[in-house]
């Protein structure tokens, strides 16, 4: 493993920013540290960079501990949340800064900056000052500046937070392409799950200073290891005391679960009902048009559940009685989440089979 964190802990006063954090990244991975604000993700990033020192644990890069190394010597490229571009230097000087600090020959500095300006597609803007750039351009310059001294690892702190929504989508795919093209091991911090899912090869979910789960995006979506991940990644409705749902009668008293929209199927009156004995009566509570489908809220067994409903199927209206089938759900067991299938279904409902 190229980057490895071992039981890293850090506290600020009474606030525990990291509790025995451990994960590892293979060379060339583009990974996301995903978590709500205050979950410790930025602290982890800053500890890898050497901007904060862990209280305990070890951080290894390429098999060697970097804790004894000054930030300068760790071979880190860092993109700050607000870019921290040097306001009184041109774009060219910003990108050249790291090379100059390393006392590289002038010709090399010039060539490298030109190469990076071409890479980010801002060849014409080398003479501008940061204040004269758009948000997206600033981010590209910050990216090029971090890459200029050829770091081993690229760290990005909320790289898209300061950009407006329109440009953000475009920049996400740009960044993904760039990093894929360069093959540099990268880790970025985000609180936006869709951003992490779209951009990263690997996601590390943090919460309350702990790593909840690390894995490929689809793995996290399909088999969340903890209640937090089940709730945080993807859409879901969380219920408490779900033993009243048909097919899940054996549930422990008061237990909680999360149900994704695609785990629920509705049958309108008159539609042929599959698995007749596993469905139960429900009432349409509300309908919302979501562009390509309807989102239906349905009351079943005393709970409100959301699910998708194709426009091709018979129309529904609020107050209408429907039949509801719940294929499966994530049952919460202490700090674990377990996939449980509807036991009245022939195959136990457990075959969660979708493919990309």
């Amino acid at each position, binding site marked *: 493993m190229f980057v490895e964190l071992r039981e890293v802990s850090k506290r600020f006063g009474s606030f525990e920013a990291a509790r025995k954090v451990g994960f590892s990244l293979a060379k060339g991975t583009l990974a996301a540290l995903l978590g709500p604000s205050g979950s410790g993700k930025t602290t982890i990033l800053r500890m890898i960079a050497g901007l904060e020192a862990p209280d305990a644990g070890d951080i290894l890069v390429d098999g060697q501990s970097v804790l004894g190394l000054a930030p300068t010597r760790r071979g*880190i490229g860092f993109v700050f949340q607000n870019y921290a571009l040097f*306001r009184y230097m041109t774009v060219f000087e910003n990108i050249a800064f790291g090379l100059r*600090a390393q006392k590289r020959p002038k010709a090399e500095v010039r060539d490298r900056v030109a190469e990076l300006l071409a890479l980010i597609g801002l060849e014409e803007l080398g003479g501008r000052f940061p204040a004269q750039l758009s948000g997206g351009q600033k981010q590209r310059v910050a990216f090029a500046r971090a890459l200029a001294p050829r770091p081993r690892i690229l760290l990005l702190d909320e790289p898209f937070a300061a950009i407006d929504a329109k440009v953000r989508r475009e920049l996400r795919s740009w960044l993904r392409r760039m990093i894929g093209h360069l093959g540099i091991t990268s880790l970025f911090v985000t609180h936006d799950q869709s951003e992490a899912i779209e951009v990263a090869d690997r996601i590390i979910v943090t919460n309350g200073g702990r790593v909840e789960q690390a894995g490929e995006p689809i793995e996290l979506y399909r088999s969340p290891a903890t209640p937090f991940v089940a709730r945080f990644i993807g859409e879901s409705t969380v219920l408490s005391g779900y033993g009243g749902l048909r097919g899940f009668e054996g549930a422990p008293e008061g237990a909680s679960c999360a149900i994704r929209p695609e785990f629920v199927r509705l049958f309108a009156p008159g539609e042929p009902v599959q698995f007749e004995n596993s469905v139960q009566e429900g009432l349409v509570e509300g309908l919302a048009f979501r562009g390509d489908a309807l989102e239906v809220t349905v009351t079943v067994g005393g709970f409100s559940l959301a699910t998708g409903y194709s426009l091709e199927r018979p129309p529904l209206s609020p107050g209408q009685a429907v039949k509801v089938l719940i294929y499966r759900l994530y049952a919460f067991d202490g700090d674990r989440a377990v996939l449980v299938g509807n036991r009245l279904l022939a195959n136990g409902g457990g075959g969660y089979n979708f493919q990309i």
Partner: protein
Amino acid sequence: MGAGTRGASGGAWRPNPVARTVLIVLSLAFAFLMLVMPLLVVVSQAFGAGWEAFWRAVSDSFTVKAAKLTAITTVTAVAANTAFGLAAAWALTRYRYRGQGLLTTVIDLPFAISPIIAGLIFILTYGRLGWAYPFLEAHGLKIVFAVPGLVMATVFVTIPFVARELIPVLAARGTDEEQAAVLMGAGFLRTFALVTLPHVKWALVYSVILCAARAMGEFGAVSVVSGHLRGKTNTLPLHIEILYNEHHYREAFAVSAILVIASVLVLAARSVVETVSRREVR
């Protein structure tokens, strides 16, 4: 806020014309009486007996010596306090540690202390009865009633100027740029000179101007430690005092006129710096 009332009053705020006139006239009168007349009286007294008399007073050898001493104390104190101010602003805003508040208070202390007390404490330290006196005497050093004392008293009185101007500017800016520079391999001097300094350059120029004005005009502290040795430990303000007390009014005002010109230049420079820096921010 009065957002809902805008329509009712018809938009822009219109001053009551009578109150406006009365207040402007009163203010102009007060400003003229308190600010303009003192300047006029200095100029009129200085040049009242003609240009030649003025020149004679100004080119007098004691005046020239006092001017030189003022230049020496001002330049030394400003240089020392600028270096200190930059270091203190860096040390107080780039890191987090206990005792920062206390340090700020100590920097502010000279503003809270009468210049006379400032002079007194240097006498109590380095004067004939001060505890450091035996050491100084053994090494043939003289501080009180000598130039080093004047410089030290001036330094003390003007310590807060640069530091106090720079600290809020740096504190408001955060440390991201410095961290970025350090991660790219820059050392202290490169980071300081290329990344930090450009942000505070106008505040620095501004504070140096004010510091110089105060150093040049310092009277109380310098008066206490100088011993009033004419031609040796007299700065321009002390020289003015001697001339005035000896009833050489004309000469006293002539020398004052030099300082008036200097302070008007300071005010002009200050306002230029303010205009330029405001334009740059936009």
